[in-house]
């Protein structure tokens, strides 16, 4: 018991004061660590896909704004999307189990600097995230966020789809390292 008490007392006496001595002036250094961060805002509340002509694909555009800061050396970042909820109700289009394997929900990307847009047309998936944008090391967006980014959707207009209204949810994810 004595040993324990002794150790405790030594510990207490050994704690240095966080405060400096009293003086006419005092200095404090303000320290901060700026880390990599990223945030995204989808600016289109609901994207309506429409067909411009008979059995033309359904198309529509989703706009988004991003904020990003990647690590100065060796950093990177990305924006991806995934169909988190497939079209419903059943009987219409489906990303996971379309009536015809050739039916797809495809998209192209438009991304403002410092991001780089995905190349070509990609097929959205319910099981894996697919790319929208990439960022290199030391990429930094505008303070208010960099806007003017978009995903242009194209959904096959298959005659096998039953008539009606269908909805799916696409989830956008941004990351920075």
């Amino acid at each position: 018991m004595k040993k324990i008490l002794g150790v405790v007392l030594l510990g207490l006496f050994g704690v240095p004061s966080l405060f400096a001595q009293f003086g006419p002036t005092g200095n404090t250094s303000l320290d901060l660590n700026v880390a990599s961060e990223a945030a995204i805002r989808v600016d289109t509340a609901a994207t309506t896909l429409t067909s411009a002509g008979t059995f033309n694909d359904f198309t529509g555009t989703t706009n988004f704004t991003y904020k990003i800061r990647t690590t100065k050396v060796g950093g990177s970042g990305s924006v991806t999307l995934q169909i988190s909820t497939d079209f419903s109700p059943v009987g219409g289009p489906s990303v996971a189990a379309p009536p015809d394997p050739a039916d797809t929900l495809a998209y192209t990307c438009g991304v403002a600097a410092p991001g780089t847009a995905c190349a070509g047309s990609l097929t959205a998936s319910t099981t894996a995230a697919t790319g929208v944008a990439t960022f290199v090391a030391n990429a930094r967006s505008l303070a208010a966020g960099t806007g003017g980014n978009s995903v242009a959707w194209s959904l096959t207009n298959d005659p096998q789809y039953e008539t009606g209204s269908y909805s799916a949810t696409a989830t956008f994810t941004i990351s920075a390292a």
Partner: protein
Amino acid sequence: METNCFKGRNRNTHSVWGKIGLAALASFWASNGVPPAQSDVATVSQMLNADLSAAGKVSVPASLSLTPAGGVFSPYAGSMTLRYLVRTTPGGSGGNVTVQATGDFNPAGGPTVSSAGLAVSCSGATLGTPCAGQNPVGLASSTNLVAIPPSACTGGGGACSEGSPNTVSLDFSMANDPSYETGSYTAVVTFTISAL
């Protein structure tokens, strides 16, 4: 002749021993601080004057970490306690505790004091009136943190404050701009107290 010689030798011997004795006593008194055994008692009055002028001192932590206060890209924030001792004169104008950035954030590439909008708010001053609202902290001028009235003093209660030292809580905040490069940055702020 013989007697005279003896008397003369005896007188000389007494004189030498007497001098030695006196010297030994003086040395003893000097080394022991014992006054001569005399009966004189002297009383001396000395007026003590203390000129208590206005004064003030502060004590602050050596460093303060600013961290994101909330989610992604939320402002950087940090809180600290400033301690102060102060005495102001009844006829004076009181005093002030101020802060000023004396060194911008470095290295370059990150925030600057001006672009980041470094600001401070004050609360809970145990003596004086704390600043109200968010107050910008700059490199060019000082920002008032606590206004101390005349006739104020730290500690002891009564006309002075109860506690000692006096304290005030300070909350610093600044923007988290995506344009800052990643890394660690440091700026120095200097607190000053004045009392009149």
